[in-house]
């Protein structure tokens, strides 16, 4: 119909090759699940702003915490009964506030305009657990 018969080609709705594309989709959808080590019950929440770890909060520590960066309050997060939710946000759409409370180790709250990411501290994080590099004496 375009007037270029050599180029115009009707596209079939489904062809066998599509199955391979579907497999690629499943592969990428499941890849992060495989890469993630066995879940432990999280005990700490990380708040990252512009690639910097701004807050590291313990889940036992209930309350509302402001996320301040560059002299402005970008968000308020609330820790309650071991879950985390966003109660205030300076971003226009406030999608992060609609995000249900964070409770699953795989869950993550992202605010693109505020460049904020809230997640549980992964259990595999190389944090201090009795091992050390140096001794000062």
């Amino acid at each position, binding site marked *: 119909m375009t007037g270029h018969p050599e180029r115009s080609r009707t596209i079939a709705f489904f062809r066998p090759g599509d199955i391979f594309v579907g497999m690629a989709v499943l592969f990428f959808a499941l890849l992060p699940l495989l890469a993630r080590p066995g879940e432990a019950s999280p005990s700490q929440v990380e708040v990252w702003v512009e690639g910097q*770890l701004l807050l590291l909060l313990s889940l036992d520590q209930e309350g509302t915490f402001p996320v301040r960066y560059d002299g402005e309050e970008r968000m308020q997060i609330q820790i309650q009964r071991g879950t985390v939710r966003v109660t205030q946000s300076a971003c226009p759409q406030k999608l992060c506030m609609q995000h249900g409370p964070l409770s699953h180790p795989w869950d993550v709250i992202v605010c693109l305009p505020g460049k904020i990411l809230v997640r549980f501290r992964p259990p595999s994080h190389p944090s201090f657990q009795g091992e*050390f*590099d*140096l001794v*000062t*004496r």
Partner: protein
Amino acid sequence: MQQRDKNDLVRLSRRTWFLTYALIGFLLVLGAAFVFRKPPPYEVEDRLLLGTHIRVAVSSQKNPSAILDAIWREMRRIEAKYSSHVSQSEVSRINAFAPGKAVPLDEETLFLFERALEWSRVTAGAFDIALGNLVSAWGFDRVSESDFSARVPTQAELEAALSSSGWQLVEISGQQLFLQGGVQLDLGAFVKGYAVDRAVQVAKGLDPECTGYVDAGGDIGIIGPKFGGANWVVQVQNPRPTSQDFFEAAFLNQGAIATSGDYERFFLVEGKRYHHILDPFSGYPSTRWISVTVIAPSALDADALATAAFNMEREQVMQLFPRFGAQALLVDSQGDVYKTPGWAFFSEDHP
């Protein structure tokens, strides 16, 4: 027109595809590299220098072994120049001058003494490099265990030593140093920190991106964050290790940390401990604290402040140290621990 359209599609577009996919591939590789970045390994070497055990760990994309070599060369140079254990050292040369006579100094020595006197002024004499006579009276200047006397000096001996000790007897004027009243310098508390700072500077000078640490017998200077992003976990030695060897961890990715303790060099007479950190006011070993750990921007300052804090009251330390970007952890003989408020920042692992 039609023909050209077709060409656009077949030829030009092929290049467009190529560029687009090169871009996508680049971004995916970038993402993959970001996610799966491998930390560069550390080259670790140990040496006995400056009368202590020194460990250097360096990671560099360039040439880590060249950096290590340069660090050792610099530290050997500093040992030869300033160590009190070396008879031809600058300190021995200066101490041999007659009282009141002008001692010419080179730039480096001048810098060190000016820095030391500055700390003496700021800490009102709690830190003092002019306690050579007091140190010898207690015998802490003897190197080997065999000629170590382990004897408490008499009051008369101490008073004599005190009268010819103290930073007020040291004067710098121009490029020259004047030692009054037979005062003797003892840079013991200063040289290790300086050597650590120089080692860090040498490493950064060869590769500003390199990371690692320099540990001179517990005086630690950080060259850069572990694996480029993580903190080094530094344990503070428990001054009385009964149940546990360490009691506190500090997380550092820059700056320096140093500890002074009454357990480093001491002797016991009739069950009483006499250690090497002397109180310039009483002439006796300081008894306020049994261990002081200081985090400071440089090892030189950390070293000097750790020694100074031994002779300072708690309130003095809390007030003075934050002004110099330094944090202190004080342990008294009861085992009670006091920290400057800013210490809490280093007690947590901020990646």
